[in-house]
């Protein structure tokens, strides 16, 4: 849970959308531990939508209190901000087809896995 891996996220702004406070705190700690700046955690879609353009990458919980994060996902796609989903569902219901290719991670996401996943996201975004 400490910075025992070589994943550095120095200077990366991560938009975190997660309505479950404790996992959000843990993710924030894990990301900040690797040098990232965490925007959020935002617990609802409205707050997250307002912050879409501020992040370099984003992490979205699919299910938020009273709805989902699909609108945020679409806004991120439009703004070309790379992101992935985290979810408690093995097979999330009602996933729109255009978001079916977005990478999904199942909770609980270990801090080391989370850092690696974000770094992978940045790499794949730089590659094209």
């Amino acid at each position, binding site marked *: *849970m400490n910075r025992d891996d070589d994943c550095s996220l120095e200077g990366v702004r991560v938009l975190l959308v997660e*309505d*479950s*406070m*404790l*996992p*959000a*705190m*843990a993710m924030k*700690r*894990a990301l900040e531990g690797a040098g990232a700046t965490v925007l959020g*955690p935002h*617990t609802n879609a409205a707050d997250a939508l307002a912050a879409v353009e501020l992040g370099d990458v984003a992490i979205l919980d699919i299910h938020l*209190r009273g709805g989902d994060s699909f609108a945020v996902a679409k806004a991120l796609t439009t703004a070309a901000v790379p992101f992935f989903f985290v*979810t*408690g*569902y*093995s*097979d999330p*219901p009602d996933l729109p087809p255009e978001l079916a290719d977005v990478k999904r991670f*199942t*909770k*609980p*996401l*270990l*801090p080391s896995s989370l850092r690696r996943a974000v770094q992978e996201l940045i790499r794949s975004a730089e590659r094209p």
Partner: protein
Amino acid sequence: MGLRSLSLRNVVPIAFIGSALALAIFSFAWRIAWLDEEVENRIAKEAQLLMQIVAGDVESSLRTGDPLHARAMIIRSSADRELDGAALFDADGRVVFATTLTSVGDRIEETRFAPVSDRLAAARAAPGNLTWVSDDRGSLFTTHPVLLRRERSDLLPSEVGVLVLRHDLVAAKAAGFDDAATDVLFGLLPVGLIGLAIALFFHTYLTRRAQALVQATDRIAGGEYEVEPLSGADELALISRAIARMAGEIERQRRREKLMVAELDHRVKNSLAVVLALAGETLADTDSPEEFAAAFEGRIQSLALAHEALAASRWEGVALDELVRRTLDPVAREGPRLQLEGPPVVLPPEATVPLGLALHELATNATKYGAFSRDEGSVEVRWSRLDDARVQLHWRESGGPAVTPPKELGLGTALIRGLIEEELGGQVTIRYPGSGLRCEITLSLEE
């Protein structure tokens, strides 16, 4: 074959064939019952016609005044008409002359006519045209009045009648019996064929419908719940509709089951994420393994207690007083040190675990630094409904050591704020008056 092993599809055919048979037997019996009368009527009618002719012949011969001529005429005439016999009567009804075909000639067979002559005399006296009587051998007899010329009456008996008999009544009845049998047999054939056709139709129809039912239930057993019920209003259609309803119910239950399994999976993973996060946060907040273990165990225990209460309510919602009691019981039982007061309030399911954890943090803080750290200290938990959709909970400590606001925000406070404000969208106010910590939590009761 017992009634239970009698196939439903065979009942209708058997009923059809049975009623066709019963109809045939009944119509045959009916024909036979009226056969005697029918044959007698027919023969009497024929005989009546013949007899009128014979009577005419006799009458004209009588006019000649020769009794022998009259006798010869009656023999010839009855033979010509193929009558079995004829006779002449006198005014007293006594047979003057009789003949039969088997004894053509002058042989008188009075014995044959004698037994009925009295009855004929009685019948003649009655009004009406012709009266027939039959003897014990089944022959029919009647007389026909012959108009006599008065001046010739000395030559012959003063009144003359003609009697006709036929011996073929028995044969006619036997033929009638055969006719009836033939008619019924040929009448039965089409009825039987129609019955057989209807029976076959029903057999096939019922077999098909029964097979459709079996196929439908097999499909349901195979997990295919869209079954088209049989049309119609018969019993099989009713059963079929009941099966379709049952299939719908099974489908709903399966879907609910699938949803519940997915939901359970989701909750388990979320719980693991929460536990993982609590471990990380607690580790960052504590200085020794012992301290970590105590704090972490306490938090996990509060999670477990809240989950237990939630499960006991079948995930429908826990009463607020029950959650408070369960969460605070490990620290202080309700009594002088813990007072609870408030109206019945049921919490939304998703608020149970966060509020339980927040209450645990308050209790832990009170044990470490507040009212529960001293024997004389006590905590009052009161709640009230602000309106239909919100509840406000007051945590008020007293009798503890003098309180001063903390210099920096501890994990406990961060958890309380995070869980109530960020996760549940409620409000938290924590104040530190000298008399003891006070905390106000406002929560939405809407799911």
